[in-house]
């Protein structure tokens, strides 16, 4: 299923208008963050602070370019993953003990401190003015201007395809089920001898890494990193998109992210003065009438097809 979508995107992309390709690249990159947050949400944990890992990835790229002169796109993307993962592996040691709103709020507090730090150390980070990120190279080549966006798009798409298929495996693996299990009943996981903290810690680090990866890809596309990446409203947006798309299936965050970016851009376009109203109304409708996210519509549809006996879905 996911491969069909990836293939479709890959074929269609170069035919789309230029700004759409860019929008898709950014949406795909952000989908990685959302996917990470979605994994945590499967475990019943909602982070209102993943903006800090997103920022870690973005600033990681900016610093790697500025201080070390690294310009290779794939290397930078991996660096973003590492930056997010590293920060998460430190903070995760504190956070893995917390649940529910405490987990959410503590993440928020920490991310606001990261935001404050990015702002405070302005002589290093440029403060709110942010840091510029130059064009990356692909295998040593700088793509010609006309192909640059498409190159970035394929980079994002490739990374997303790999991550999504890995995530798809993960959610069906013992660890993936343990995550759902501990969301349902942590006490029972303990009484089976399962290590709740360790599982949460691992998934947390993974989600931090994914957020960093997303941040690095976004900043490569956008070309500028600002402290707002770590601001709570950015984190809130990721959680929103995870719910919007639905985190029950790995394709939920992906489709949610793409749709969200398009809807937002559309809202900006048709009502530059009241786009928040449009966005808010849409969010409210989804929460009230589709609490499992948009992807649940697709799943329901597919379930109906299954019943009629002409399923095209691989057995799962």
């Amino acid at each position, binding site marked *: 299923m996911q491969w069909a979508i990836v293939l479709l995107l890959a074929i269609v992309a170069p035919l789309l208008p230029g700004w759409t390709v860019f929008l898709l690249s950014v949406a795909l990159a952000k989908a990685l963050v959302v996917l990470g947050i979605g994994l945590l949400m499967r475990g019943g944990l909602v982070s209102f602070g993943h903006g800090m890992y997103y920022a870690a990835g973005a600033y990681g790229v900016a610093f790697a370019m500025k201080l070390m002169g690294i310009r290779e796109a794939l290397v930078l993307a991996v660096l973003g993953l590492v930056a997010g993962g590293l920060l998460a592996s430190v903070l995760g040691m504190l956070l893995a003990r917390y649940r529910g709103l405490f987990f959410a709020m503590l993440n928020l507090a920490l991310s606001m401190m990261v935001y404050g730090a990015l702002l405070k150390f302005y002589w290093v980070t440029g403060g709110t003015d942010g840091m510029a990120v130059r064009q990356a190279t692909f295998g040593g080549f700088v793509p010609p201007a006309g192909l640059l966006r498409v190159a970035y798009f394929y980079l994002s798409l490739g990374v997303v395809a790999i991550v999504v298929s890995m995530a798809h495996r993960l959610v069906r693996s013992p660890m993936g089920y343990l995550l759902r299990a501990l969301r349902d009943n942590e006490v029972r996981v303990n009484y089976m001898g399962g290590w709740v903290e360790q599982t949460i810690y691992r998934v947390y680090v993974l989600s931090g890494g994914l957020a960093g990866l997303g941040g690095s890809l976004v900043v490569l596309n956008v070309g500028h990193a600002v402290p707002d990446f770590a601001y709570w409203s950015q984190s809130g947006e990721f959680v929103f998109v995870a719910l919007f798309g639905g985190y029950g299936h790995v394709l939920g965050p992906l489709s949610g992210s793409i749709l969200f970016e398009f809807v937002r851009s559309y809202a900006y376009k048709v009502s530059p003065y009241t786009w928040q109203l449009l966005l*808010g109304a849409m969010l409210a409708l989804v929460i009230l009438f589709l609490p499992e996210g948009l992807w649940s519509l697709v799943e329901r549809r597919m379930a109906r097809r299954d019943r009629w006996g002409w399923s095209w879905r691989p057995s799962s």
Partner: protein
Amino acid sequence: MTQLALIAVGGLFSASWLFLVSLGLTLIYGVLRVLNVAHGSLYALGAYLGSSMVLVALEKGHGVPVSYLILLGAALLVGLSVGPFLERVFLRRIYQKEEVLVLLLTFAIFLMLEDVMKLVWGVQPYVVNAPYVALGVVKVGGVRQPAYPFLLTGIAVTMGGLVWAGMARTRFGKLVTSVIEDREISAALGVNVPRIFTGAFTVGAVLAALGGAFTAPMISVVPGVAVEVIVLGFAVVAIGGLGSIEGAALGSLLVGFLRSASVHLFPELDLVAIYLVMALVLLFRPQGLFGRAEMRRV
């Protein structure tokens, strides 16, 4: 000496404001288990309606003393109309869902109200500071201080006291307490839980609007005033313990005094002070200063 006095007074002002902003938030969380992002919008609505009503009154030649009553009236108007509306139309539908989902719904409400306010009041700034100026100044340690924030302190203490007494002394308060203790059992015992929810949400909305209405004379009311309030309110409530009134009071005092001290002693810390307190408190006492750690019965 002067510095200490100034820190103390500044801390008190800051704490009073924070308490006004967080009291309703913690109350709503305590009863409904909803972390209400739209709290900020109710605050902004209070500020907008309060200042525009005072403005009209002043233009019609009413004296400044009336304006305090008008601010109170505006807060009640916002709280009593918008509060039940939001609760009945939106929140009621999804109480049984996860806390986060409800939180995001209130976020959606917040987004919509941002633009609704823009449509109603435009983007022009409202500065209606007659009520602020009229109270004059007092001297603290030889330094002039505005007297208005003492009014804020008074209101904060009164509201805190009223809510506390209301919970402890009135029949409604006791019903609310029973719902907080155990929703299912209260419902089984015949408590009209939905009504309690509407009531508590409305009280919380009034408190939010009150905070906005009485802050309005101090500030320029512009789009976006709602945003700052939300995070500060959340931080205070998290520090004090979600759902705890005493906690909100102590959290406000802690943050207020730290902010005031940081302005006088380490201005660089101003921005991060509140998050620093929040992170430290949550690390050592995750349930907040007055929160109760809940153990699951097995």
